[in-house]
């Protein structure tokens, strides 16, 4: 174990230098980097916000099942199936049929089935039905139908969340899908997430609807911005989808902040027609079910440009135009988890983390020197090499360092010496029975090898499991702990062993104490 071929020694030191040199990259100044790699600081160290958003697809399912009502009725009428007692429930439709068998054939036909499309990816229909009694059936979304609704809502939401956050202009945001219903948003450096949270909390569904008393589509009673009760037609003249731009403005006449918008071609046509036909009536501008304002239509608006006023502050006008530009979210987003750390706490954490690292490191080094003298020096050299390699690997991986991650490094310092302690203690034992010092060292290393490996693999298992199940900062701990074990094994079994061999072989069997 003490004989190293020259080529082995070369490989060991080259590998060490290659990895360790990456740790130096972290000292680069931001302005003149010659190599783009460094350890990222976690949100708990640099400050920032972590938000976990969840889409609420209940309302979407409700909406989607309602949209099936007309096609289903049409299908039944066209094929001469009589029905009655058609009820629209929260997430299903129930009805009585006189010919369920015929309905079944039509409902589960794969060809040109517009009512109940077949989803090839999942080999399943969008809808399913079950018999409640001989005549009555209940129609609802299949498992995969729901999944499809969820997925497309989630994809769309991510896109819109990204647009809104980019529009606000935070640096390096991370936006990722998490599971089937969630979106993870990380906003480094953000002091106060409330504005972003409120921007993400609004679906921003904009509708233009007429104020009217009786209407074939039915009406909703909504309250206007002045507290006036208005009956608003359920028919949507035009929605936010037709908007191509929106900007905050100051109205020249009364200096009030407003939002001016531009419509696409289809939108201009729809809007033009509706305003031409309804001059003199009032048009309600409805955002998320609340009236923003309900102005009179004084003249037809065919230019495709319009303006929304509604007692805004300039900030509100800015936010509303941002929301309108980015498009509507398919469902409301709920913040299910939030973790925000202010920048000064992050700085304090770095300071206390580094201080405890340095102090812990010095304590361990002094203790090892006291215990093993010259061989303590070797163990300490290995420890320093270990730290350099650990930060080197973290840099290569561009890992994220968190406060628990720093704790993981400190713990590595404490536990890393274990490998060398195991070996040195074994050598001490071997020296008692073995006459040749070289042999004693040699067999010490050989015999301790299995134990060192076994002992470290157990901690590695714990670190891997923690990495798989941990979240955020805790993951950072698992990373440093796990990598620390690997670098520990390398430094103890290659670097420290080589240094030991230099001392032992040079001493030529003279009495060496350990």
């Amino acid at each position: 174990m003490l004989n190293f071929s020259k080529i082995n020694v070369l490989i060991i030191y080259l590998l060490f230098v290659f990895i360790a040199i990456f740790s130096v990259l972290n000292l680069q100044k931001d302005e003149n980097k010659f190599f783009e790699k460094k350890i990222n600081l976690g949100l708990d160290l640099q400050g920032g916000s972590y938000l976990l958003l969840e889409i609420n697809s209940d309302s979407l399912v409700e909406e989607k099942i309602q949209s099936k009502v007309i096609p289903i009725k049409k299908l039944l009428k066209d094929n001469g199936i009589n029905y009655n007692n058609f009820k629209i429930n929260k997430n299903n439709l129930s009805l009585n049929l006189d010919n369920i068998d015929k309905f079944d054939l039509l409902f589960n036909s794969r060809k040109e089935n517009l009512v109940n499309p077949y989803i090839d990816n999942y080999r399943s229909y969008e809808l399913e039905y079950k018999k409640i009694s001989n005549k009555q059936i209940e129609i609802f979304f299949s498992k995969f139908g729901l999944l499809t609704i969820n997925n497309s809502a989630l994809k769309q939401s991510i896109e819109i969340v990204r647009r809104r956050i980019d529009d606000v202009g935070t640096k390096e945001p991370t936006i990722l899908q998490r599971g089937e219903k969630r979106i993870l948003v990380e906003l480094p450096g953000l002091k106060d997430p409330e504005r972003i949270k409120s921007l993400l909390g609004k679906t921003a569904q904009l509708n233009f609807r007429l104020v009217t008393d009786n209407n074939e589509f039915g009406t909703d009673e909504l309250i206007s911005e002045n507290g006036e009760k208005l009956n608003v037609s359920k028919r949507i003249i035009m929605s936010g989808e037709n908007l191509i731009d929106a900007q905050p403005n100051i109205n020249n006449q009364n200096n009030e902040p407003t939002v001016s918008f531009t419509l696409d071609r289809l939108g201009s046509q729809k809007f033009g027609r509706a305003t031409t036909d309804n001059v003199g009536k009032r048009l309600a501008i409805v955002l998320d079910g609340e009236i923003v304002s309900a102005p009179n239509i004084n003249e037809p608006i065919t230019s495709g440009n319009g303006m929304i006023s509604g007692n805004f502050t300039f900030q509100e006008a800015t936010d509303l135009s941002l929301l309108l530009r980015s498009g509507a979210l398919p469902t409301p987003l709920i913040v299910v988890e939030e973790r925000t750390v202010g920048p000064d706490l992050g700085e304090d954490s770095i300071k206390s983390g580094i201080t405890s690292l340095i102090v812990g490191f010095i304590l361990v080094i002094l203790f090892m020197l006291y215990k093993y003298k010259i061989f303590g020096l070797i163990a300490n050299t290995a420890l320093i090499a270990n730290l350099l390699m650990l930060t080197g690997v973290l840099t290569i991986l561009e890992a994220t360092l968190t406060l628990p991650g720093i704790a993981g490094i400190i713990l590595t310092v404490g536990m890393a010496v274990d490998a060398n302690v195991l070996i040195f203690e074994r050598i001490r034992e071997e020296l008692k029975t073995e006459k040749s010092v070289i042999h004693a060292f040699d067999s010490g290393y050989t015999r301790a090898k299995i134990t060192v490996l076994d002992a470290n693999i157990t901690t590695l298992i714990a670190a891997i499991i923690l990495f798989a199940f941990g979240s955020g900062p805790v993951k950072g701990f698992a990373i440093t702990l796990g990598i620390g074990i690997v670098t520990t094994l390398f430094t103890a079994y290659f670097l420290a062993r080589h240094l030991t061999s230099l001392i032992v072989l040079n001493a030529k069997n003279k009495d060496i104490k350990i």
Partner: protein
Amino acid sequence: MTNINFSAKFKYANILSLALFSISIIFIIFKGLNYGIDFKGGTLIELRSNNTEASSIRDVLKNMNLGDVNVKKFGQKGDYLIKVEQTGDNNKLIPEIKKSLSDNLTSEVNFRRVENVGPKVSAELLQSGVIAISLSLAAMLFYIWVRFEWQFSIGSIIALFHDVIITLGIFSILSLEINLSIIAAVLTIVGYSMNDTVVIYDRIRENLGKYHRLNISDIANLSINETLARTIITSVTTLLALLSIFILGGEILRGFSFAMILGVLIGTYSSIFVASPILKTFKVSYKTLEKEEEKIVP
């Protein structure tokens, strides 16, 4: 090498372990664990003020009807940690609390940290925490079973249970908060305690092969003594590192490092006084090794 007669003390150690274990179980069941917002849901706010009293923060929050509110000092003077159990709508709740505190406290308020965990997420976090700990125990059981014999595997897993339960028991007795970082600590304790046990087991296995005439008590005794210096030195260096985190690492790491310190002490004890006597119970001898000789290819 030391020559301490450990096996003579196994009996007392067993009684002590059993007592600590039972007390811990009783406390965990009847007093319960003090879950933080990670596992219970709720809102946590860390704020820094010039010289606000905890009572004035409590008064402000009392007027908001938030239900159970807990305000305590955190670190330096003027720093407080506020916990609100009510979950509610994150989008409304947090800005309201912040505004109310900024408006009604005389001192300037700096919100250093805000955490909010909804009821669904907290249930999931707790579940994945429990799965992680169970899985790590199972993985250790399997690893030792592969590397040693089943008797060793059972012995080490009992020692691990002992460590985890007593650590959690002490947290229950002292009403210390269990959060995500404590789960990380418990998993690390599992790794550390296992590490300690493996070193002694390795030596026991080696000595069983070497000294056929010694019985398992003597073998265990000899092995513990032979590895004692290492056990102590490694515990000391690890504890030095942990004490440094505990004292200098700031408030956020205090619970974590405290759990780890407990775990290292208990884990070191259990490798000697729990994991080793169990081999005696199973009547492990060199014959146990011979039966499965082909399995050991070190």
